[in-house]
């Protein structure tokens, strides 16, 4: 059987960490899938943010739809300094599935589709755009308000091959 879904790297935190980075990502795949199961060790609530290739410029935008169990809302942000990958609290583990298609081409801007669930708080569907044509070789995650990912949080990056 051809293996089209391959682990690139995984990181299980042995202690709380403010930032999680995957670097030197191979361009050998067609798409990336990023799986996160994480908690927040420091604050009651925070947003997971992300940057590609250590780009801290205002080159990101996102549009989201959010449900908190009583209301549904949608919002967006342009010219942001990081992408948004949803909500992370200290009372329930957040799970996130992030799909990044055609990540290694050097012609188009890169978009991602993220589904983030915190069952006790809210759920997100977010599309993010990075206005850069470079291949993605580095993904860095951090908390918007300076919180830490708690010990035991897992982050796994998979590569998907078309052939």
């Amino acid at each position, binding site marked *: *059987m051809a*293996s*089209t*879904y*391959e*682990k690139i790297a*995984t990181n299980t935190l042995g202690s709380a960490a403010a930032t999680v980075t995957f670097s030197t990502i191979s361009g050998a795949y067609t798409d990336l899938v990023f*799986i996160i*199961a994480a908690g927040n060790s420091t604050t009651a609530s925070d947003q997971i943010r992300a940057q590609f290739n250590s780009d801290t410029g205002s080159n990101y935008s996102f549009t989201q*739809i*959010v*449900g*908190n*169990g*009583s*209301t*549904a809302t949608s919002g967006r942000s342009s010219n942001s300094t990081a992408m948004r990958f949803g909500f992370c609290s200290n009372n*329930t*583990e*957040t*799970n996130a*599935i992030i799909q990044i298609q055609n990540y290694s081409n050097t012609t188009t801007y890169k978009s991602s589709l993220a*589904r983030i*669930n*915190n*069952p*006790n*708080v*809210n*759920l997100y*569907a977010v599309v993010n755009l990075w206005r850069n044509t470079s291949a993605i070789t580095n993904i860095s995650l951090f908390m918007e308000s300076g919180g830490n990912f708690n010990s*035991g949080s*897992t982050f*796994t990056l*998979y590569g998907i091959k078309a052939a």
Partner: protein
Amino acid sequence: MANTYTLISSVTVGSGGSASIEFTSIPATYTDLLVKLSGRSSRSAATMEEFVLTFNNNTSSYSERQLRGDGSSVISQTFSGASIQQLGQPGAGATANTFGNWEFYIPNYAGSNYKSISLDGVTENNATQAYTNFEAGLWSNTAAITSIKLSAGSYLAVQYSTAYLYGISNA
């Protein structure tokens, strides 16, 4: 190359339908589980009926948070009780031959934490009462998941309903 995405088991409902679809004796050798469901309910004259999801034949400590669009509005709701209960499928009153399409992702299913689940599903049927669903599910239980049961409530999952269980490994 490691094979990180493995079919564990599959079910295709046969003639006469089935009250439930169940996966048992799920090994703990993977990191995450993924279920892909194509279902339709036998509920007479209804355009939709909810399937429900339980683990390990346990009927307590489930909750879910839902975001549902029906083509004209979006709502968000919460539910709790004996199952994850809002897995809408076309009923017998829906357009013929249409089946719901659901995907459940269960990270860290064999760990000792509570189980947090991502669920996405659609019930398009070229008519009104069709839904797009995003859901966050939680089973507040620290046991490893060893079985998954999809029940059709008081009705049946009709013939040709299918479910596939995949194991995903990070090794």
